[in-house]
């Protein structure tokens, strides 16, 4: 029983933070927005890959570090804090699913490349009207339908597409190459200008069992990638919220009105205290969830939904109040606050919102009581 991160885990966090402090900046992020290009920062990707981040979850035998989700917790927080763009976090989420559910061949084919930073894989799982349906075909299936909000699909080498199999209505993840025939991408306009996502259509895309993660339908794999995404979102929201609170406190200590720093007024300082309570409680929930995921604990569903619901509400509160505390400059485009707000809001509604996760958690709790 131990709620602390290890010295190694904290070292990794420090190295990520100091790399980002040196090699990355909000100014560079803004250039990516203004350039109006594909939003992908190859140098940043390479730098983070050189630090070993995509390798964390990959087994040592396949060129990775052989670590688990707990080892990601603080890294994800740093990614949130620095608004790291690009498909790094999404690749980590997909990696977790491949490590746990992939066949030997799939693991061999994908994980070394991921560990080396050569391969980018993203989940394509957001529910929309016309979900991809796989109908049987000689020697495989034909896939049609579409997925919205597929992150960085144009920069990804593979998509992990949540698919429904017509035969027995089973669900599964299918490995699809976005360049494959029948796959078409439409760039979406996003609330977070530092992100990229695509509406991906599948028109009779042919695939075989080799492309189904684990070799066949697996509802567990679909649920797992959603859970990993939810926890990654929760941890990133903690990072963003922590950064916002830092900015709020710093501004409140420095901005003088009525002859005093505004941070001396209870209206401001008490709110900052409430923000801290929610931030730290969110971290508590997010850290616990990474452990539950890593150890496949029986309470994993509850832990994941708890983290996503609580961190979503907390980051909403903290981001909104940070803007409020900044007063007039809080809604100036030049300040970075809205970039944090936009990313946090996007994460809040990704991988299930707080309401959905609360309902899921209560269902699990009641089922657990029933069983006990």
């Amino acid at each position: 029983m131990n709620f602390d991160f290890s010295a190694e885990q904290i070292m990794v966090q420090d190295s990520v933070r100091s790399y980002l402090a040196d090699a990355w900046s909000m100014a560079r992020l803004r250039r990516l927005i203004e350039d109006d290009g594909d939003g992908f920062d190859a140098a940043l990707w390479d730098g983070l890959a050189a630090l070993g981040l995509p390798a964390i979850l990959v087994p040592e035998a396949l060129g990775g570090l052989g670590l688990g989700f707990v080892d990601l917790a603080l890294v994800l927080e740093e990614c949130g804090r620095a608004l790291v763009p690009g498909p790094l976090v999404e690749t980590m989420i997909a990696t977790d699913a491949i490590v746990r559910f992939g066949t030997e061949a799939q693991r061999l084919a994908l994980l070394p490349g991921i560990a080396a930073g050569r391969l980018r894989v993203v989940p394509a799982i957001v529910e929309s009207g016309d979900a991809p349906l796989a109908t049987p075909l000689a020697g495989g299936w034909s896939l049609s339908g579409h997925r919205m909000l597929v992150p960085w699909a144009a920069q990804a080498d593979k998509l992990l597409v949540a698919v429904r199999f017509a035969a027995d209505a089973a669900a599964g993840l299918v490995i699809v190459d976005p360049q494959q025939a029948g796959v078409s991408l439409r760039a979406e306009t996003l609330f977070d200008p530092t992100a990229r996502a695509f509406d991906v259509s599948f028109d009779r895309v042919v695939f075989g069992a080799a492309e189904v993660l684990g070799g066949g339908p697996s509802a567990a794999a679909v649920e797992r990638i959603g859970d990993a995404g939810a926890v990654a979102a929760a941890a990133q929201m903690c990072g963003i919220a922590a950064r916002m609170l830092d900015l709020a406190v710093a501004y409140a200590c420095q901005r003088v009105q009525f002859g005093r720093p505004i941070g001396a007024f209870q209206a401001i300082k008490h709110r900052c205290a409430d923000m801290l309570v929610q931030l730290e409680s969110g971290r508590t929930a997010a850290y616990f969830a990474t452990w539950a995921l890593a150890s496949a604990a029986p309470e994993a569903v509850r832990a994941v939904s708890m983290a996503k619901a609580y961190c979503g509400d907390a980051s909403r509160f903290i981001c909104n109040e940070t803007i409020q505390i900044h007063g007039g400059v809080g809604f100036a485009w030049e300040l970075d606050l809205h970039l944090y707000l936009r990313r946090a809001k996007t994460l809040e509604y990704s991988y299930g919102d707080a309401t959905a996760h609360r309902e899921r958690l209560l269902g699990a709790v009641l089922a657990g009581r029933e069983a006990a």
Partner: protein
Amino acid sequence: MDFHYSAEDERFRQDARGWITANLPPGWGRDVHEPEDEHARYMGRLAWEKKLYHGGWAGLAWPREYGGQGATLVQQAILAEELARAGAPEGLNIIGRNLTAPTLMHHGTEAQRRRFLPKILSCEEVWCQGFSEPNAGSDLAALRTTAIRDGDHFVVNGQKTWTSFAQYAQWCFMLVRTDPAAPRHKGISFLLVDMRTPGITVRPLRQISGESEFNETFLDNVRVPAENLVGALNGGWAIAMTTLTYERGPEDALARQIRFSRDLDRLLDVARTQRRHGAPAIDDPVLRQKLAGAVIEVEIMRLNCLRSFSRLLQGKPLGPEASFQKLYWSHMAQRLYETALETLGATAPLAAGDPATPAGGLFQTGFLQSRAFTIYSGTSEIQRNIIAERVLGMPK
């Protein structure tokens, strides 16, 4: 207490509804909204406001000698309702109508009123507001822009910020320091400044919503005729309080209520078409609670305004309880747009411009704009101070 309308008022309503139906710009109404391009949007709003004026719908309750129609405040509220029902655009000269005009009616000379008020209604002159400065936000009395008397002119130097619509405005009312030696509140005057005077530079400030409604305004030896002083020299603070009272008051609020009510209406439509867990979002009991809460709050906003109007009709002046309206609607609107994003659910991360986001991204933009509602016109913290100290009589 009676919320029935008189036969005369009902006739007025029919007239207004008929006129609006006949004159609404193409593309407006239930299912569309303003153009993406900001300049086009503001020009559209200006054109609509001018159309209303020419149709005889501007300044309904103003005195006739200043271009008004001599109608009642009730009819003004009816017009607002009908505009909301029709999904009509807002106007552009909001500051002129809602702030400059009542300020001049209270504190201007007869000459100033006759000079300025009619052109506000006709929209020949659009107004902006020069109160805030970089170091004088909540602490407005810390303002540093100076005006030094030079013959029959004042020479103004300094910097204003958050001057809404300055790039479209012909005139600006401004607080300036005319006696640097006096105590903070006693050395301030209220000036009307022609924005076309040499020495004025306007730099748009981009907001988090991507729009540039606000500006920084730099003043470099701007010469303002002394006759443009409103009220007494160094007596500007009390006049500014009048302006702020109107800025936060029921007339401003009712105009905003139109927009919130329209957006809420769209939201209810969207909730019927958006699907979640295989059913229309509107069938989700949890979301229904939040939508119902929004309906209640938007309706209470309207009724709060009517309650204030009743006070005005009785001849009671608008006092610090104007802060009450501002505090209410600004937080209400933030909750409204949060609920809107929750209604969008998984599609909330899309934005204006994406074909898959409903109502053309209206709610995402509204959400971003709403973050400013609790800041401009005096932050919520300032409004709470005013209410506590001046309405409830609590100690400073």
